[in-house]
């Protein structure tokens, strides 16, 4: 086998093991006190997830994330639908949605604090702000995608407005809505972490700060990896649903 075809048979995610090994070596022999060996981090991560402190932080974080995402969904999808079906709404809001989707929203977070206080509300708002725009844009794009002959078809066969909306537009936009949801989850996770560490030291933010200020590097990295793993699993879950509906994304 050529080296090329060897690679064909190794799943590409496996290269992460190579990186982990490099990390382990740096951790052991690199003499950088900030980078403990990977093995120690993993051991610490196992320990960490069993502590009360972690569970409490997880609960606080999950709550902020859940409420923020729920708000983003409740606001984002209808807004996207509105902008998809009603031209004036799109013309009025399109610019703003596009500004906010790429704006450094982080700068807005400090402003939320005097507005909403130092508690969960601000973190919820941060999650919401990070997640909502991509949902709006993708929902809108999804609705647009269905726009063509499927709607005409439903009209020809005598569909009413609500039939067209529920039987054609919504299921038709589902692939994009799910893509939007997945991207919103990625952004929402960023939002919850940024919110927690910029504003109030809540949940994981508090743990990060505690470990960092006291130079507990094993705990710090363990938490980084655990949070990553949680985010990854969440994103993959949405991704799985998304792939289930993806088969018709190219054929509407």
């Amino acid at each position, binding site marked *: 086998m050529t080296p090329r075809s060897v690679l064909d048979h190794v799943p590409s995610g496996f290269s992460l093991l190579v990186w982990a090994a490099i990390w382990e070596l740096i951790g052991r022999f690199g003499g950088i006190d*900030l980078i403990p060996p990977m093995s120690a981090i993993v051991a610490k991560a196992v320990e960490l997830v069993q502590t009360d402190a972690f569970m409490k932080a997880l609960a606080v974080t999950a709550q902020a994330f859940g409420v923020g995402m729920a708000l983003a969904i409740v606001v984002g999808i209808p807004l996207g639908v509105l902008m998809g079906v009603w031209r004036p709404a799109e013309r009025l809001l399109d610019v703003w949605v596009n500004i906010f989707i790429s704006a450094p929203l982080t700068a807005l977070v400090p402003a939320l604090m005097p507005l909403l206080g*130092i508690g969960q509300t601000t973190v919820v708002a941060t999650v919401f702000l990070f997640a909502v725009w991509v949902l709006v844009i993708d929902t809108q794009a999804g609705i647009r995608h269905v726009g063509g002959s499927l709607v005409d078809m439903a009209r020809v066969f005598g569909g009413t407005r609500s039939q067209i909306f529920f039987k054609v537009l919504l299921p038709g936009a589902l692939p994009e809505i799910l893509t939007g949801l997945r991207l919103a989850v990625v952004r929402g996770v960023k939002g919850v972490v940024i919110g927690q*560490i910029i504003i*109030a030291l809540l949940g994981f933010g508090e743990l990060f700060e505690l470990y960092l*200020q006291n*130079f*507990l590097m094993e705990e710090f990295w363990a938490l980084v990896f655990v949070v990553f793993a949680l985010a990854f699993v969440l994103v993959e879950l949405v991704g799985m649903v998304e792939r289930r509906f993806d088969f018709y994304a190219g054929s509407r």
Partner: protein
Amino acid sequence: QRVIRVGQADTLTGHNLPELIAMANAEKRLGVKFNVVALKSDDVVFQAVINNEIDIGIGDAYKGIDTLKAPVRHFFLLRRVAYFPVVNSEAYKTWKDLAGADMAVHARGSATEALALQMEKANGIKFGQISFVPGSEVRIIAMRRGTMKATLLDLPNTRKLTEEDPKKFIVLPVETQSASDEIFYATTKFIADNKELVQVLCEELLKSLRAVNADPKTPAKLRTELGLLKDLPKALADDITPYFEMAVPGGLFPTDGGGAAAAKADFDFLIAAGRFKGQNADYRVEDFWDLAPLNAALAKVGTN
């Protein structure tokens, strides 16, 4: 059960045990619950207090009271300033060398910042930039790595660093410090509405601090007894007693709750730091402190 929200600008560690112990005891006497939250910085704590999101702040509110005329008063001095200017001797040897150099301190609005400003004045120099790096532990790492050349460190970390490499890390001469680092404060309304609570808290703080001063092992012991900070990582738990064994002889914990004398000293300090304009006489203690609860508490538990 009533919850009293207390805010401070750091994550909770063993260093906070004296006040945690006091609050735990006060809880038992008052039937309330103290809920301590850690916020990003001192100015966030102050804002939270004036916005009524937090009942009691730990830190200081001098600047806020001065500029905003905020209805906030200090009522108990918890910890004095004990920070030392540590420099990398390969870069700087005297105060004069620090002119134009970067100086790292804890946080905006913190005592370390004021201290840095005071040092500029006292030595007739101007730092290049004062940058904010929260956590003495973080700053000593940066000092070790050479990415930071001058900073203010608390007592234990100063010792740690200078003992590690006495040639490389030196402490520049400073006048004895008597300024406050962390003070309990609240809105006038809160203090007025909760006279008993504030007084009891002061009493318990006095008792707790006196106990710590008498035996630096007390915090670690009481932590287990009272079940405080249960989730503290082991490395931090092990550090509790060494910290107090160093901090107590350094005179960090006052036994009298501060009061007028502390306020006057703070005015001097803030004026020297350039954060207050004018002279000591221009500032009145009662604009910044509500001495009544402390005095009542002292009357109850004795003036030592």
